[in-house]
Structures are given as C-alpha cells and as structure tokens.
C-alpha cells in the first residue's frame, strides 16, 4: 500500500518535472528564435523546405479527397431538404474551421513531426549534437531552433493550401459531377463565411504548428540515444501530437464561439 502511494507520488512528481522542463525548453527555443531568423535565415529556409515543401504532395492529395467527400456528404444530405445550394457553405465552413487545420495537423505530425524527431534523435545517437557542443556551437540554436521555426512557419501555409485544394475538390465533385449551380455554390459560401471563420482556421493552424514542432523537437532531443530509443521517440511524437492537437482544437473552438 505504502509502495503504491509512493509510486503515485513519484509519477506525479515526474510528470510535473517533465512538464516544467518542457516549458523551459520552449522558452529556450523562443529566446534564440529572433536572432537566428535575422542572422541565419538560410537555416530556417532549409527547414521550411524540409517540413513544408516536402509535405506538399501528401497535403494536396488528402485535401482534394477530403474536400470531395465533404461535398458528396453535404450534397446527399442537403438534397433531402432541397437545400443543395448550401453545399458550398457547409463544405467551406467544415474545411476552413475544422477539418483543414486538424487533418493537416495530423498529417503534418505523421510526415514532418516524425522526420524531425528521428533526425534529431539520430543526430544525438551518433554524437553529432555532442560534437557541436565540443565545437562550441550550441546545438539548441543551430539544430533545434531552425527546425522548430520551420515547422511553425510551414504549418499555416499547409493548412491554407489544404483548405483551398479541399474547396477545389468539393467544387469538382459538387459542381462538375453533381451539377449544382456553380454560382450558387460559391455565392452561398461567400454570404455565410466571414473573415472571423478564416481567422479561426489561421489561429488553429499556428497553435498546432507550434505544438507539433515543439513536441517533435523535444522528443528527438530527449530521445534515449539508441536505435530503439529513437524509434520510441518518433512514435511518441505522433501519439502525443495527435492528442494535443485534438484537445487544443476543442479548446480554441470553445474560446472562439
């Protein structure tokens, strides 16, 4: 019994400690960010390329089909009320406010987050980070901050692209295949979508970008420097990112209502 209490005490203590360390880590990244962007923009650009440009294909393909299926579903159900003219509204609202940011975030965690974790974990396992330390180069600044910033900058772009391609997919399905009037589709959308809806999507994408990049970099940096440890860190990145994104999504939506 005492052992159990002690066990619980230790795990709560450990949780709080890890959480605190995580916050301090975040602050450290933020502290280095401004000077790095100004002095070494090339490093950040390379990471925007790695996380953003290289995720483009998966984002666009998924966006197209998510938009298409949304259009199909919305049309099928709205047609029951003779309201298929509102398909555009439904699809755009769903895409811009919810599915765009969330699905992009999940894909991003799977594509870019894991790549970041395993890359940093491997650099740690092969002493590359220690080697930098020994060359008097701060690996947090040189390796982690550019990757973090690259993810944070790439994410809103990817979300915007996802939503646009999604709308295009919906357009193809609803207008071209199901013969809804093209004017009704876009006009209805324009009447009911307001800038605040777009802002909500942007806020979410920024928040998700920060959370996923931070988690990926953190997990990689704190990975146990073995093949197994890196593998586990990669898995944890995806799992924790997915949970964090969905919880955060709920919280932001609740606040924005």
């Amino acid at each position, binding site marked *: 019994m005492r052992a159990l209490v002690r066990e619980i005490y230790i795990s709560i203590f450990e949780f709080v400690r890890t959480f605190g360390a995580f916050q301090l880590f975040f602050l450290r990244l933020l502290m280095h960010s401004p000077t790095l962007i100004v002095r070494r923009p090339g490093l950040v650009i390379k990471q925007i390329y790695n996380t953003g440009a290289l995720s483009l294909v998966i984002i666009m393909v998924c966006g197209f089909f998510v938009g298409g299926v949304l259009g199909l579903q919305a049309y099928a159900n709205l047609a029951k009320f003779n309201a298929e003219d509102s398909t555009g509204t439904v699809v755009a609202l769903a895409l811009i406010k919810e599915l765009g940011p969330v699905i992009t975030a999940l894909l991003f965690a799977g594509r870019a987050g894991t790549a970041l974790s395993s890359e940093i974990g*491997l*650099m740690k396992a*092969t*002493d*590359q980070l*220690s*080697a930098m*330390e*020994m*060359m*008097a*180069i*701060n690996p947090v600044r*040189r390796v982690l901050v550019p990757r973090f910033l690259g993810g944070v900058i790439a994410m809103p772009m990817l979300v915007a692209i996802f939503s646009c391609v999604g709308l295009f997919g919906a357009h193809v399905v609803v207008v071209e295949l199901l013969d809804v009037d093209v004017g009704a589709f876009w006009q209805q959308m324009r009447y009911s979508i307001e800038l605040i809806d777009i802002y909500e999507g942007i806020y979410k994408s920024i928040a998700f970008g920060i959370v996923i990049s931070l988690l990926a970099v953190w997990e990689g940096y704190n990975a146990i420097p073995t093949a197994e440890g890196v593998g586990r860190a990669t898995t944890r990145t995806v799992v924790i990112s997915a949970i964090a994104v969905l919880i955060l999504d709920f919280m932001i939506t609740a606040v924005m209502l």
Partner: protein
Amino acid sequence: MVSGDSENLIEIRDLNYSRGARVIFKGLNLTIKRGQITAIMGPSGTGKTTLLRLITRQLIPHRGTILIDGVNIASLNLTQLYKMRRRFGMLFQNGALLTDLNVFENVAFPLREHTELTNRLIRHVVLTKLHAVGLRGAADMVPSELSGGMARRVALARAMVMDPDILIYDEPFVGLDPISMGVIVRLVRRMNDALGITSIVVSHDVAEVSTVADCSYLISGGKVAASGSPDELRTTKSKLVQQFMHGMADGPVAFHYDAPDYAEQLLGRDSE
C-alpha cells in the same frame, strides 16, 4: 585566463561522479602535461568516455575540481565555457560527422559558424586540413559513403580546423583495419608534434596506444590504478595492470560476472 606557463595543462583533483546509484569515479586524480600525448586506458565500462565529457564539461562532477590552465571549469558561465571549448578539438568514436553535409562542409562547419571568413579563404583552409589527413580527394563525398577510417580522418580534419590547443581522441582505434589504424596512429603523432598541441587519447587498445603515448593512465574502479610511460606500465607488478596490459582472460577483473554457485544453479537447488 591564466597564462599557460605551467607544465600541467589539465589537472583533475579528487573527482567524484556517479550515474544514478552507480559510482563511476571516486577520488580520481590525474594531470595532463602540455605538449604530450596522454593515454587514458581502462577496461570497458570504467567511464573513460565519461571522463572526457567531464573534462569538456558536458557533464559536471559531483565533487572535486577540474582545472584547465589553472581555471576551474565548473565556474565558467556559458560564454566563457564556449570560449574555452574552442581550444578543444574532439574526435568522437564514430566520427560524429554531420550527416546532412558533405565532407567539405563538415570540415568547414566550425569556420562558417565561428568566423566571417570569405568562401575562398574557407576553401583554402579546409583543403589544407583535408590534405593533411590525405582526403582532399573525398571533399565532395557524403558521410554515408565513407569507410570508418575515412570518417575518422575527416573528423580529425574538422577537429583541427579551428587550430585547437588540445585534441581529444575518444577510442580512435576501435573497429579499424590494420592499415587505417596505422594511418590514424601516425596522424595522432604527427598532429601532436608538428602543431605543438596537447593530445588526450582514450583507448583500450594497449599495443597501439603504447606506440604513441608519452604517458598513460590506467583507470579502474573509479581511480587511477597505475600511471607512467607505456614501458613502465608493462613492467609494473600490479596484477590488474598485468592483466590489462597483456590481455589475460582472468585476474582481478574476473572472467565470470557475479553469479550464484554454478553447480547449485545447474542442479536447481537454489529454488528450494
């Protein structure tokens, strides 16, 4: 910084360090003389690499002091520490080359990070260093294309590129074929003498170390078990030193890991 007139470059006094419950060093004393090649030897798992990390303050000792040029490195702040580290060049066990850069950029890396040299000058310096390790022709290769020995030579060029005072080699001879090994041994000696730097070689490769080291320390059980020139070590009477130097299977470092009685365990009596 205290001017470096004294003979001792690095002094370690009463060093204590433990990882978790496991004590790694208890009361270790060690001095490294300027301009010499000092070898640190010891059986696997005695914390040789840990000692290197302590000297370069990647780890902080629990008790005791490490003085470099008379300065206690535990007292340095981050800026001073990085300034101090620029005096070091370190060669990691597997080279630790940055995998996303090619050989040339790996060697140029410290220059690009720390200096504002022009591309032409960087090119000049890097090619000189690569030439010194005999790999000028491999400048465009990426680390994954290099053999173990080549990777280590590139890492050596990188460690040299900032012209350090102290070069640290972590297990430079492990896993190399005899030719590569001979190349590395020669390079260690040549770098040390030609450039007047101080070298620290961590290894358990007795034969190779003996050919290059001016002074050796044998570490065991968290302390210095023996020290002196390789020849002195070879003739010491201490059983541990003899076992280590001549590679005997049994001795003070037992062949068998601690276990219950063999016969009893086989007959299954211990479960009753």
